[in-house]
């Protein structure tokens, strides 16, 4: 018995922490359907009050960027330092801006 068909589908779990931040990916689990995925995620990922809200998404529904294109996608931003406020000198007399 090694057919992957025997496993329940895989779900990715996202939790919003008590601090009210964005839902953050915390891990994955197998579940027969969405309701069960939520129930299991509650048992596995919130046993110490880690969250106040759970999202589950079928893993198969996620499209990821290609790791081979990492340099092409993300390296150009390294030279665009003018997008950061620290690029600009503000005279001391102006104070906080």
């Amino acid at each position: 018995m090694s057919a992957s068909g025997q496993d329940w589908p895989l779900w990715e779990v996202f939790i919003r922490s008590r601090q009210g931040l964005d839902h953050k990916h915390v891990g994955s689990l197998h579940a027969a359907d969405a309701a069960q995925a939520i129930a299991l995620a509650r048992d596995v990922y919130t046993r110490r009050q880690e969250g106040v809200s759970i999202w589950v998404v079928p893993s198969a529904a996620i499209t990821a960027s290609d790791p081979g294109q990492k340099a092409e996608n993300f390296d150009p931003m390294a030279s665009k330092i003018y997008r950061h406020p620290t690029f600009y000198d503000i005279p001391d007399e102006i104070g906080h801006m």
Partner: protein
Amino acid sequence: MYTQAMDLDRSATPADATFTSEEQAFNARIARDEKIEPNDWMPESYRSTLIRQISQHAHSEVVGMLPEGGWITRAPSLKRKEILLAKVQDEGGHGLYLYAAAETLGVCRAELIDALHSGRAKYSSIFNYPTLTWADIGMIGWLVDGAAIMNQVPLCRCSYGPYARAMIRICKEESFHQRQGFDIVHTLVRGTPEQRRMAQESLERWWWPTLMMFGPHDKDSTHTAQATAWGIKRITNDDLRQKFVDVTVPQAEYLGLEIPDPELRWNPERGHYDFGPIPWDEFWRVVKGDGPCNKERMAARIQAFEEGRWVREAAAAHAAKARARAAAASVASEEAAA
């Protein structure tokens, strides 16, 4: 350890240093301490080494619930029962985090479970020892979880992202395990003479098997060099074991318990405790399947898996039916709209 280097598979070692350009790029990433993620290129031997180590670790978490699980109904108070239940539930969660990390490498859960149940996969030798008294539950938390923490903290920096993240989550939960165990032993040594004796007798049974958890000596561990080069292993078996002995001996002294090793003594020159020879014959016997509880543990695992089968199948059938019903309803509403 939970990831005891015991199946000494030499095929995982690259034959020579003639690397392809992909391998060179991979090695450079490891050298820069970058994390390797599931969709990144990786050498097949890195993949298979990780699958073996992570799944072995997962199996250890799951089988590790059995020696403690039997004491949930016999815990001496409601408080201890709740604590033990929570601890054992954590271990089940650890198994899940780790199975999920292994699955990112392209194996399915059913294969991993099958490897365990058919005896192809190993789990930590420590869980093949019996829990004869309540003191053993204290000893497991204090010593076995304590040893697990020693091994797992460096794994939080492992080069494979999903494994490192699983370990961070696990380490956050382990400290409670060790402290509740210490608390049980501490309570016993302050109790009646019988309770103190119970703690001492338990320590005598668990001490050497705990030291074996760290795996063979470095000179006998063929995995260590490659696993270190790949950033999977950060500290060697012997260094971890020494670290464990160094922190545990003063704790035992505090508790007034005697570690069953006549050769144990502080070595001021080394700045470490010296300790006697580990009974490796026993270790290999247990690893190869002939420990006190190997058969019992596997039988309990397989029984639980088989008795849960109808639940898994019923849930899958229910989900399929609900999907079919939803699909039929959406077709019907489209037709009605047309």
